[in-house]
């Protein structure tokens, strides 16, 4: 069984079996991923590139095979390996933004963005006098598309989250990309919550940048990627300087690599790349679409059950949304709720989920969030709802 491949799911928490429902924060790792990293460290560990010895060759092959795998899975021709979504977006702000945006240019964001897709642009805006336009979120938990079209006017870049980490709502990206390109704007997709739940054809999708993290799709911490459309890639200047991203260095100046290495300064995250490759291969061992259907059915059932015990639920749980259920009880404090759940082994997250502008718009300062992934079962969801019922009865 798929679930048996995750050693951590055997664990007990406070005497109860762990029910891990914090998957939007990070997912668990199957044994094959741990094995791949262990194998690397116990058999092939070496620094990569420009090396002649056997281990270095194996390490280089291992590292680059991650890029190859990502290119295959996402049908992308330029894949920059980063430390995660956050670095990937900062890379765009520095490498593309600083080279291509000038005072008065406009960047369109949405109120649904994660802080990692807001703060880099605020910093750039402050430094360069770039204008930021935020697309509001409606009471149906969706982007206000009229406002979006309006915001597009003269915009140079649109940054939009594929799937909200608070609401689970999947945005109408096809429309967004089409309209943005029509308006002459490039599009950056924050797909941190998108890639775990669907397979995206980047070229067919048509976005210019797409950022995501390994740790949210069964891979290790410390690694992520930025996909870039090839002609946009050519217009990027280096971000960080250092080893491996150069062609020649003299005291007079340096020349840079022209491929993805240009953006990967220093010793890369080698073991992480090898672990991620294993995770990506592992994700091909089952039908992700079928799993997604199963999960969104669970999420939508949970959402209704929570509404039935008096919770306010933030989200809509349509077919393409992620299995994320954010909720609040009218009287039970969300942290108290999370602690009570933890006492019975249920791991959920509380707080602003790094999306304060969205919560501001919803008029709240945080939610309790249960997010489901491929190893979660219907039984776990039922146990969760039963536990919530008990808590509400006892503490409301």
């Amino acid at each position: 069984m798929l679930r048996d491949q995750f050693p951590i799911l055997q664990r007990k928490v406070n005497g109860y079996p762990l029910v891990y429902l914090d998957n939007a924060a990070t997912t668990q790792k199957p044994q094959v991923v741990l094995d791949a990293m262990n194998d690397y460290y116990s058999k092939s560990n070496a620094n990569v590139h420009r090396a002649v010895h056997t281990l270095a060759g194996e390490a280089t092959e291992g590292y680059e095979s991650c890029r190859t795998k990502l290119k295959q899975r996402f049908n992308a021709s330029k894949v920059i390996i980063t430390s995660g979504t956050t670095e990937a977006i900062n890379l765009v702000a520095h490498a593309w933004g600083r080279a291509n945006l000038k005072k008065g240019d406009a960047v369109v964001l949405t109120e649904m963005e994660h802080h990692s897709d807001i703060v880099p642009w605020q910093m750039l805006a402050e430094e360069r006098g770039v204008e930021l336009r935020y697309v509001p979120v409606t009471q149906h938990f969706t982007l206000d598309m009229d406002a979006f079209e309006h915001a597009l006017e003269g915009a140079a870049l649109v940054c939009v989250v594929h799937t909200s980490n608070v609401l689970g709502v999947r945005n109408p990206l096809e429309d967004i990309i089409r309209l943005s390109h029509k308006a002459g704007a490039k599009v950056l997709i924050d797909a941190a919550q998108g890639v775990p739940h669907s397979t995206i054809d980047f070229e067919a999708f048509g976005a210019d940048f797409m950022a995501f993290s390994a740790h949210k799709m069964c891979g290790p911490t410390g690694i992520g990627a930025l996909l870039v459309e090839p002609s946009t890639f050519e217009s990027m200047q280096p971000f960080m300087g250092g080893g491996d991203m150069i062609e020649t260095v003299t005291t007079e100046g340096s020349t840079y690599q022209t491929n993805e290495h240009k953006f990967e300064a220093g010793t890369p995250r080698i073991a992480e790349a090898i672990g991620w490759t294993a995770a990506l291969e592992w994700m091909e061992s089952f039908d992700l679409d079928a799993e997604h259907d199963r999960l969104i059915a669970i999420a939508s059932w949970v959402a209704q059950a929570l509404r039935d015990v008096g919770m306010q639920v933030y989200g809509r749980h349509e077919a393409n949304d992620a299995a994320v259920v954010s909720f609040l009880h009218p009287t039970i404090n969300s942290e108290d709720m999370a602690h009570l759940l933890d006492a019975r082994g249920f791991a959920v997250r509380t707080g602003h989920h790094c999306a304060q502008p969205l919560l501001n718009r919803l008029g709240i300062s945080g939610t309790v969030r249960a997010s489901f992934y491929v190893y979660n079962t219907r039984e776990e969801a039922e146990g969760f709802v039963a536990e919530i019922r008990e808590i509400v009865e006892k503490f409301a």
Partner: protein
Amino acid sequence: MTYPVALQELVEEFQAVDDKRERLEMLFELADEVIELPSENWNEQTRVRGCQSEAHVSIVMDDGRIQFLSAADARMVQGLMGILTIALDGLTPAQAVLISPAFAEEMGLLNTLTPSRSNGFRNMYDKVMNEIRQSMEG
């Protein structure tokens, strides 16, 4: 380590309970001990930093004895405040500063709380003790 009688009793009560849920319930009940700091008195001076939610504490001296006022939005945090109320209320500052923060560990509170929450508790404790020390100097 010995503590004021009321606190000592609490430490033992908590030690007797293993289940996290039961401990939480005990904490929740202790919220009733809080002497409430009215929200109109909340300000940056009363705010406890490092808590995820709002938490405010204040010390008032009443005839040389400590009165501990507090407020929080999470019931668990109120419970922690309740413990401090039991520990401190009515003591002289000289008595209060003798109380070591080790009681939280002995109670097993730190196992009940996650690290960020126990940091929050520690911040609250430190803040209160600082105010008490200042009241002694003043």
